[in-house]
């Protein structure tokens, strides 16, 4: 399954949902696509029992490189505990910690993260982040063994 985390009304925080939107016609049957706000128990409920869960989220990094793409295979929460660039104070790290405590991690968890440039109120991604959408979608298709989606494209908002 693929889970897009974010809020489409906070500019680049919507990158997760944008990637899921692009994957909608590209993933094989049986691959579940979910969009969520990142609330940990919803994330955990979404991936419980999945053999493979792929999460797409926006992140901050220091120093910043907006549009930069990261890919992690995750089996434990991060150590920094910096809040993710998502809609709420509880985020992906909390979901992973909670899932470990409750034995509800998916068989394998991969996180694709895109560095955000703009998290103010409003719809639409910044061009830099929008340009990353196709690349991330392609990488996710590789993760699930479904090949590439063709030329990357995204609405620059």
């Amino acid at each position, binding site marked *: 399954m693929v889970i897009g985390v974010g809020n489409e009304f906070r500019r680049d925080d919507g990158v997760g949902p944008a990637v899921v939107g692009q994957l909608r016609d590209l993933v094989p049957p049986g691959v579940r696509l979910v969009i969520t706000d990142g609330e940990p128990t919803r994330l955990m409920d979404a991936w419980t029992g999945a053999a493979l869960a792929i999460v797409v989220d926006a992140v901050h990094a220091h120093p910043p490189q907006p549009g930069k793409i990261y890919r992690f295979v995750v089996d434990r929460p991060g150590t920094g505990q910096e809040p993710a660039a998502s*809609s709420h104070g509880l985020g992906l790290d909390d979901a992973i910690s909670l899932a470990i405590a*409750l034995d509800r991690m998916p068989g394998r968890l991969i996180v694709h993260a895109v560095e955000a440039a703009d998290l103010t109120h409003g719809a639409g991604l910044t061009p830099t982040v929008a340009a990353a959408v196709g690349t991330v979608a392609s990488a996710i298709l590789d993760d699930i063994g479904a090949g590439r989606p063709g030329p990357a494209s995204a609405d620059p908002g």
Partner: protein
Amino acid sequence: MTHRNDRVLSVAELARVEGEGALYIRASGNKVEEARLDIYEPPRFFEAFLRGRAYTEPPDITARICGICPVAYQTSAYLAIEEACGVTVDGPIADLRRLLYCGEWIESHSLHIYLLHAPDFLGYSSGIEMATERRDIVERGLGMKKAGNAILEAVGGRAIHPINVRIGGFYRAPSRAELAALTDPLRRALEDALATVRWVAGFDFPDHMCEADMLALSAPGTYPIERGTVATRSGLAFPASAWEDHVIEEHVPHSTALHAHLAGGGRYLTGPLARYSLSSQWLSPLAREAASDAGLGPSCDNPFRSIIVRAVEVVYAIEEALRIIAAYEPPDRPAVDVPPRAGVGCGASEAPRGTLWHRYEIGADGIISAARIVPPTSQNQATIEADLRAFVEARIDLEDDELTRQCEQAIRNYDPCISCATHFLNLTVQRSLPVRTDGGPSSSYVRAGRGHRRRERVPP
């Protein structure tokens, strides 16, 4: 002889609060000079975003303001627009609306009780740590939350940002069988909710009282959720359409949110304590009994006990959901027609965190020309600040770490939905205290970000 010693304690990332903002407290000696809650409020963006949109759109658009309480935004929106269009919705559609809202209360309160608030009382740094040591307890809370989720999925179409809600009702009414499938999980959740009331009633509660008026919807004959007129404990009673005559919002320099107070000047509290204090007599017998057994009287002024009130409200919401499901007959049509007409409409409902008020101006063509949204947290902001001021003054002798921890807990009493779309809360406590007179160094503590601390020497 005493000197002054300025200490600054800055704790970034007050976790377990849905949103972002900052709390700043400045104390001099034993007196708190300033308590300031900075919050950043997305409804203002949405108010502008709604202008020029069709009158049918606000339930879907405003649901995106908050992932935790989208039904509240949808409800206040359709109530306002239906009032503007002169339409009243009742019967099974109204019952379904209340059922959906019960799901949101169950979900939101369960999350807050188990992952945000209870850890404070039990000495855990987080709900995660509590889950590690008390998995059974946390699983119980998550089970209750899941029962609420199931209602949102069955009636609202999905658990976040429900898509089945429209002006006049729903796009599709669930079948009896679909709702009946919720019954067994809800019965189990009711037992868990009653156990939750007993559990939280055993916590230690600081002796503290919130000195403010209280405001909530009132719907004599039933506990207020998705309908009612506005009432205050001081005796005001008015319809949502008269909100602007009684509730004044003002800009304050430190916040993008507006501070609300009553026209007479008084600050007030909205949310579970206000609902309970104004309408506890309308709870179900079982919920009243649970409240009484938990030590609650007919009203409650201690914000720390709000965790008990939330647990009682979960009991009530589950019972209401079971009652509605048992009596449910699908409506002939899932929605009534709501043709547009030029006018102004106001709607208010009880979000888990308090009264949420909407106002829309609509043209004859159905296009929205003005929108106004007053969320509960901005109404509570002045009261939270005043409450924190009194709370800190009574505990000014505490060490910084403990004072900070207790301030965080006090903020979580209010379950602030500070942004509904943002990141974290910063807490800063700055205080001036007498320095040591034994010749030891004067020190300044600066903690910027969780886990980072440095000590600086400052001149006396």
